[in-house]
């Protein structure tokens, strides 16, 4: 009966006959729970570590991707500007060519008149010889 009284007063004896406030069963369960919890926390910590490294990795990847992207954009722009540069160069060369062409045309006209003079003079010489 004493047990029940104790039980009523929420006092218990454990196996070693020590007085306990908590029911030994519950106490055991609590301990179990505690251990389980610890295990759980450990696992979670580990998980976090793993996830952390993953995130880091992904971050690195992202950075690398970003870099590559910038590079690609730069390259593309460069390409575009080179095309423009070429165009400008072409334009400049074209202008120089036009200039040379004009000079050539001038020389051509001069050459033609000189040819005409040569012909005139030859004719004159022939005539002169003939008349003599």
């Amino acid at each position: 009966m004493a047990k029940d009284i104790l039980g009523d007063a929420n006092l218990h004896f454990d196996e070693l006959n020590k007085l306990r406030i908590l029911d030994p069963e519950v106490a055991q369960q609590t301990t179990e729970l505690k251990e389980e919890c610890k295990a759980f926390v450990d696992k979670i910590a580990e998980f976090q570590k793993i996830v952390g490294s993953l995130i880091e990795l992904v971050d690195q990847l992202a950075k690398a991707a970003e870099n590559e992207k910038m590079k690609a954009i730069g390259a593309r722009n460069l390409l575009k500007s080179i095309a423009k540069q070429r165009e400008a160069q072409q334009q400049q060369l074209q202008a120089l060519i036009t200039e040379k062409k004009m000079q050539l045309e001038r020389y051509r006209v001069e050459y033609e008149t000189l040819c005409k003079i040569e012909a005139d003079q030859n004719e004159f010489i022939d005539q002169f010889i003939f008349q003599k």
Partner: protein
Amino acid sequence: MRLKTSLLKEPKHKELVSCVGWTTADELYSCSDDHHIMKWNLLTSETTQVVKLPDDIYPLDLHWFPKTVGGKKQSQAESFVLTSSDGKFHLISKIGRVEKSVEAHCGAVLAGRWNYEGTALVTVGEDGQIKIWSKSGMLRSTLAQQGTPVYSVAWGPDSEKILYTSGKQLIIKPLQPNAKVLQWKAHDGIILKLDWNSVNDLILSAGEDCKYKVWDSYGRLLYSSQPHDYPITSIAWAPDGELFAVGSFHTLRLCDKTGWSYALEKPSTGSIFNIAWSVDGTQIAGACGNGHVIFAHIVEQRWEWKNFEITLTKRRTMEVRNVVNDAVDLLEFRDRVIKASLNYGHLVVSTSLQCYVFSTKNWNTPLIFDLKEGTVSLILQAERHFLLIDGGGIYLYSYEGRLISSPKFPGMRTDILNAQTVSLSNDTLAIKDKADEKVIYLFEVLSGKPLGDGKPLTHKTDITEIALDQKGLTNERKIAFIDKNRDLYITSVKRFGKEQKVIKIGTMVHTLAWNDTSNILCGLQDTRFTVWYYPNTVYVDKDLLPKTLYEKDASEFSKNPQILCFMGNQVTIRRADGSLIHLNISPYPAILHEYVSGSKWEDAVRLCRFVKDQTMWACLAAMAVSNKDMTTAEIAYASIGDIDKVQYINSIKELPSKESRMAHILLFSGNIQDAEMLLLQAGLFYRAIQVNINLYNWDRALELAVKHKTHVDTVLGYRQKFLEDFGKKETNNRFLQYAEGLEVDWDKIKAKIEMEISKERERAAATPAVRTSVTVQR
């Protein structure tokens, strides 16, 4: 000709360069948006910072104070005006001290220019105002005001007019109030830059429509360029007005004054905002948009004469090429070559300090003498000597390097003389005055004194171009000139007291040139190329002139061709597009000239018979009459079918005395006064009276008769006969008066005439006439 450009690797300025200006031929100042003023020394290739302007001054335009002030020459410019975007202009000394800052415009001051004398400054601004300032920066007047910004301004050659932009228009406004303003639409876009040359009086304009144009001072378009890829941002005349430079984005162009382009460069400069020519006209500097200052000098100029071809290969080196044997000589000079001229077997080269005279026979030993002043602006050559013009005066040197003379006239301005306004022959120098365009000053070469009575030759309208003939006697020196109306006149340079005759021989003449070896003149008349084989014809027999011409269609030469030279029997013409055209003319007239100058009349006649050309005969006729060789003249006139003239010549031959023959020869060429004077001097009064009677010059005949108290009845008799023939009545009071007391008796008159003639004959026999000047063969 082309430009050799040089650009530093790194720009010296951090921002765009807005303006540049030369102090001497080797020193340049540049201003930039980074507020620095830099000095560039080309001799040492050093660039130093002169001053850093306050941060709120953004320079826009720079102009050095002119060197010549009141005839006194300063060795170099001492200060300059700098306009800036804050509405001020600053007078800054050479060492960079800001002497004065003047609040000038509302908004930026876009340009500032000193006039040629340095007595006034004009500034223009974004507020559309044009303001004139004194030398010290005091406001004199606001010349004009308009609603749009004025981007550029220039002074007229006489500093009495101002040219400025107004949007797409150009405006010339005289400084005098109420004077006529000239305004015209010049471009399809806004005009950015303009320039007005004082030597050739031509205007340049450049605009956002990507074109540059050349105008004359009346606003007539002479040249318009093809559109470029970018707006033309700068344009500038060379000081001598022969060339100009054009700047645009990545573009620098060198052009001839007629507009066509000598050379194009495509340097990496960005836009060239300002171009400045060095004082000697051999270099240009450009203010570049990317902070650079580009320098360029002119190389590969060419000179040709007969079989020699000379090229300026480098600044100080010339290459002489003899085309006949392909021999090449290199001529090295100590300094930069500024001007050169090759003609009459001599090459004259002026460098910044010395003058070199080479003979084409020997290229190794030039004659060298020092120049008084550096920059020679013009070299002209004649057969015996040459002429140098620099800022200080006109100097004539012999090819031995001896100074012959240095002609001067009041108000002379040598900086604006060019080949069109100065002409040199072996004995005479002619200079067209700029102050009065109607006047030509004539000088004797040997003494440097004005010719004859010292009075200059004055024409009734403005003269544009003059040329002296090169050969023949000093007494027969002729000058041909073109006036504003494009009429070609010829006149004798020597005058003997009496009014000299200025005779018009052509109209619509653009350009002319005398031959170098004989007095043949060629010119471009409207659309025809004309050669006057013997221009002197006008003084001998005017009717003959059209027969002594050679004409050729010149429409193939396009608009505004220029004759460059007329050497031997080859004429070189430059077309408006820059191409050279060579023309051949017949060699015979030159040979004829040679025979005649040697009085080889038989040879001349033989030549004409050989050539069988009317023109040649006409020339010979005129030459013979001019030299009073009537036998040849008779043959020549007979050959061109002028029977009336042949008859007259025959009648001259029958005249009894030398004097009357001379007089009739003069009459033949229309010199009535001279003929009469000659007869009167010889005491042949009857002849003189008869001459006037034959010309129906009754009053003069009667006057002579009365004065010398003989043959009054003869005059009256002929007069009566004349009136009867035409069925008229005497109305002349003098004749009525003398007729009263005189009876006309024809027998008596005839007897008297007979007597006169026999008397003349006797006299001629008594004094055996020296018939050198008049060869009359019977």
